[in-house]
């Protein structure tokens, strides 16, 4: 039987740089590896991964498997799977960590089924059971209305981790580690999909994930118009961005990339202003990491008030203009 050792992080690049979610995974992986007294490894696949490989060491990896190939320029499951499967078999780690990202969601279940093991997706918390040295995995279920703790004895143990739930280590450029350029042949004849085109839809202005303030609207907004007027006015005043819960996105009031929640974006701004959002768990899953949540809702029983630090009970049509005007006045003073 193969021996399974160490923690392997499947890293990602964002615009050629090490993705922030990968630094979070390395921070979490470092703790797990230290507890097991085993190594922390990182796979980086792309057309150029040199710089990011060194960064991965600065953020905690002992070994970085750097796989460069022109076919890895853009993520495609059938090419990435060839790398992921080969490396998992060669390195034989005890655990594989991926981000619950566009790539992780698509790749992790495929890899688990290919390796004959299970994967727990969207984990919020990971720890080691000292008795069995198994990874204990906690994730939200039922749209965030409960949490479940999983273990599994099939190896390797695989998880994807929700972004912004783990802390990266302090970057340390003097940290020692080894970059191992790894050649993996990719049989492009086995790639059964073709990317015909990639279309950017993101609105101009500040990105939701980077905005310090988010003004978000829910089903209670009643239609598309207030997102472009009353919410936008407040967001602009606070140099923030406009977001939405799932119903406005499903109804086409706002584009899908403004959707915050379990199946949309996960954000953690300083200030999150939830307007006419009931606060279903499915939505709060995407914003509960915010430092301060402020809720405006006409229903005093709305769940959002359980999440919020400050709240006003009232119709947004009346509350919000007065709030924005007063704020303008105070900010100008």
């Amino acid at each position: 039987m193969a021996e399974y050792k160490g923690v392997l992080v499947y890293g990602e690049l964002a615009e050629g740089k090490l993705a922030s979610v990968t630094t979070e995974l390395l921070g979490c992986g470092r703790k797990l590896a230290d507890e097991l007294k085993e190594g922390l490894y990182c796979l980086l696949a792309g057309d150029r991964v040199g710089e990011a490989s060194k960064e991965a060491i600065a953020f905690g990896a002992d070994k970085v498997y750097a796989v460069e190939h022109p076919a890895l320029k853009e993520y495609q499951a059938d090419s990435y799977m060839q790398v992921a499967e080969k490396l998992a078999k060669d390195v034989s780690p005890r655990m594989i960590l991926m981000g619950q990202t566009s790539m992780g969601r698509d790749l992790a279940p495929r890899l688990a089924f290919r390796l004959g093991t299970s994967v727990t997706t969207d984990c919020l918390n990971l720890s080691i059971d000292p008795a069995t040295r198994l990874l204990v995995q906690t994730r939200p279920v039922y749209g965030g209305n409960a949490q479940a703790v999983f273990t599994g004895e099939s190896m390797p143990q695989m998880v994807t981790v929700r972004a912004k739930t783990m802390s990266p280590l302090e970057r340390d450029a003097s940290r020692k580690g080894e970059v191992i350029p790894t050649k993996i042949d990719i049989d492009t004849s086995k790639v059964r999909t073709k990317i015909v085109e990639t279309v950017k839809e993101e609105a101009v202005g500040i990105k939701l994930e980077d905005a310090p303030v988010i003004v978000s609207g829910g089903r209670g907004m009643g239609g598309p118009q207030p997102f472009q007027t009353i919410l936008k006015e407040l967001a602009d005043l606070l140099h923030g961005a406009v977001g939405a819960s799932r119903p406005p996105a499903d109804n086409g009031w706002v584009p899908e990339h403004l959707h915050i929640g379990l199946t949309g974006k996960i954000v953690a701004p300083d200030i999150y202003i939830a307007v006419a959002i009931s606060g279903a768990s499915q939505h709060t899953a995407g914003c509960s990491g915010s430092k301060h949540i402020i809720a405006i809702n006409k229903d005093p029983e709305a769940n959002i008030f359980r999440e919020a630090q400050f709240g006003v009970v009232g119709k947004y049509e009346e509350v919000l203009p007065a709030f924005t005007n007063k704020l303008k006045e105070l900010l100008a003073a």
Partner: protein
Amino acid sequence: MPVNMIVCCKQVPDPEAPPAVFKVVNNKMTLPPEVKPVIGQYEEFALEAALKIKDTAGGKITALSLGNNFVRDVIKKSLAVGADELILLEDKAFEDGDSWSTAVALAAAIKKIGAYDVIFCGRQSSDWDAGQVGLGIAETLGIPAVTLARKVEVSNGKAKVERVIPDGYQVIEVTLPAVIVVTSGIGALRYATLKGIMAAAKKQPVVWKPADIGTDASKLGAAGRRSRLDRLFQPVKESKCEIVGGDTAAESGAKLAVRLREAKLL
């Protein structure tokens, strides 16, 4: 050319029920009887994706579901909106599975169905939210899969899919047969017509047991799991919301601005 489609649908407790009614008792999610089961929201989108293709290219839609104790009126909604056939993997042996044992059973049923061009699944079930079964079916059957589809067109043995990515979308071409995993954006599931409801009332779902799909019960449901559920719990949340009030809603709004400045939040 008509397209043979299979849509995997799951019967789940209504995820839109208020958070307060979700209660964990003895490690199991327990819901009051007034919370009715529904077809999962993403499976409804998957059904709509298939129906749109049937509208234009024509073809056959088989709805496929796995579980036990199905509420017939709920699961037969698939027939009422336009699926041609409904197959239920219904047996105690299918209960309490994980993504692994569920995908194994569905893949075995799909092999038995035989003729398929596209298998549609929702991006994640509305109860366990794992988001794995569609990809597991593709791996088990050895066919390609495209996830997070918000638009699908089929022609000449290929599907053209708009796949949602964080800052927009990609147009992806995939050879068929393939699994296509659907997200929102495809459009809400159409309402059943009166004619559809009448036709569905006359149809009976086909029920398959483990032996019908040639799979040993040890590979199914709870027995076939590869992950172990140790504990289900609900973290206690302390509400400490300061409600800012006034004589009118507008006054409350203005006071909120003052309060947030005081607290140095804005």
